[in-house]
């Protein structure tokens, strides 16, 4: 029912899209965004936009709902419990194969900060060096499937990643999955020296923290999506310089996280957010080529039944100029 009412109001919006300032201020729309984790610097843009009133300016009344270890934002968006979600690009592609038609409208990160983490001096040159070592990896995670098709990893002792590193730390030879933007910092804090190797080095580099909606929602609420995306991107731009203040807001939603760790995350993710393609095309920008590559890769992994056109799954059209 939520989608229906959304659809009606969207209809009126598209008709009078030329001069809508009056209507937009008159009619504030309630929308919900599900994060892909508890609030972090990854979501800095959202909080910056919220804090600076960008959503309100665009006629949106936003509720932010944090995710969690087992919370699937895709399920919540697909079922209509939320309008917007954040997820990684490969999750969005896989979802489509299950009949969940989503459209990515902006990405927070231009690449994937997903990496392997090693004890210092125990790093790897090549992914095949993982053989013979313990690797803590989340069961089913797609990049691991990808690596297994690219390299012979039959000698790896695969262990489940559980969100803790207590088993990794004492074992010099162990390898664990990690986010470049967070785990290494905590290791340093505890005096554990580590190195990292980006998964992207293997050629698997999906966009991370991607803003998406369902295809149906998009078709009926183009203006809302446009407004949201605008606020999202502008929020990221504001975050670049004001992250120290915004982090305090983030911490209100995730009080257990240390402000220093948010700072580290914000600084180490800057290149992913503002660098690469974003340097040229602005924050949130995506390319057809990257999406097509990802689709092809996932198809090769048999995670897709068939290859489809990348344009069906992403759109730069809603990004602000």
């Amino acid at each position, binding site marked *: 029912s939520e989608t229906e009412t959304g659809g009606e109001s969207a209809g009126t919006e598209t008709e009078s899209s030329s001069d809508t300032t009056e209507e937009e201020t008159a009619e504030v729309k309630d929308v919900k965004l599900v994060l892909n984790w508890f609030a972090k610097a990854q979501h800095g843009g959202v909080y910056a936009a919220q804090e600076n009133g960008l959503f309100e300016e665009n006629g949106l009344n936003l509720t932010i709902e944090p995710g969690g270890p*087992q919370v*699937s934002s*895709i*399920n919540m968006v*697909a*079922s209509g419990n939320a309008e917007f979600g954040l997820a990684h690009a490969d*999750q969005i592609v*896989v*979802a489509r*194969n*299950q*009949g*969940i038609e989503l459209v990515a409208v902006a990405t927070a990160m231009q690449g994937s900060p997903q990496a392997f983490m090693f004890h210092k001096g125990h790093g790897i040159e090549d992914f095949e060096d993982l053989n013979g070592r*313990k690797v*803590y990896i*989340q*069961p*089913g*995670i*797609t990049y691991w499937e990808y690596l297994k098709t690219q390299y012979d990893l039959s000698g790896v*002792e*695969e*262990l*489940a*990643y*559980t969100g*803790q590193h*207590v*088993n990794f730390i*004492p074992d010099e030879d162990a390898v664990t999955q990690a986010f470049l933007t967070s785990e290494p910092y905590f290791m340093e804090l505890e005096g554990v020296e580590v190195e990292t190797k980006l998964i992207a080095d293997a050629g698997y580099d999906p966009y991370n923290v991607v803003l998406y909606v369902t295809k149906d929602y998009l078709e009926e609420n183009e203006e809302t999506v446009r407004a949201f995306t605008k606020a999202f991107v502008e929020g990221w731009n504001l975050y670049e310089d004001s992250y120290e203040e915004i982090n305090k807001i983030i911490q209100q939603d995730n009080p257990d996280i240390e402000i220093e760790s948010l700072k580290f995350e914000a600084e180490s993710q800057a290149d992913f957010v503002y660098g690469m393609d974003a340097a040229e095309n602005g924050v949130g920008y995506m390319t057809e080529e990257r999406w097509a590559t990802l689709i092809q890769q996932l198809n090769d992994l048999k*995670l897709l039944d068939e290859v489809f056109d990348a344009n069906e799954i992403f759109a730069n059209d809603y990004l602000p100029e």
Partner: protein
Amino acid sequence: MTVKTVPTNAELVNESSKLKVMKGKQKFNLKYLGPILALVIFLSLWQFIPALLDIKPFILPKPTDVVAAAVKDWHLLWPAMQITIFESVIGFILSAVVGIGISVLLASSRVLEISLYPYAVILQTIPIVAIAPIIVIWFGSGFNSIVIISFLIGFFPIVSNTLMGLNSVDKNMGDLFKLYNASKWQTMVKLRIPAAMPFIMSGLKVSCTLAIIGSITGEYIAGIGGGKGGLGYAITVAAVQLKTPYLFACAIAGALFGIVFYLIVSLVSRLVLKSWHESAMEAEK
């Protein structure tokens, strides 16, 4: 003084035995009709409500979707089930043996009980997710840790029930044992344990189903080690890949195994209690 003798009315007897046969049939019908009807209703609701409300299979798959997924990926599902079954059974046996053992120990001394029982409660209430890494450090990743987690979850219901049972012995029977100078151990073996049997059995029933939850959760939090993954692993993978129908197939496989496990334990319970306890006794009139 009068003795009245009425000959056995053969017809009457015949009729009554006919009645009994009919009654037996009706009982049979009810006994099987009920569950079958319930199943049919349940499955049709599940099949048609999503269809009617247009709920997508990735949110709530219909039974047919689930069956299709199970058939398609049977070669993955079956081995996963076997692993989970194995882990759960071992975990359950561990919780039964250790649980009953510890209860007997605690019940044998009031001091021990009040000193150590809190730790049994802690074992139950401490969030296993939090201590999983320590379990892994001690027992290694994979099978051992999974079994330990399954054990930890199933352990407390047995302890709680067994202790309750051991402490609720009929006072007069206790007096009997006191009088005959029974040792603590004799009282335990010959009086308290038999008297606690109904409680113990109820604990075992709860705990056998928890053992499954335990081993599935265990695979989540303790990893699968070097070995093959069970249902927990399969569920994680299915969740990551958003294969909801297969995820449901895994969940239902777990649930079905749970029911079978439960039935087996119930059967054993009936056999054990048969000789004396009301709940297991066919009332004879």
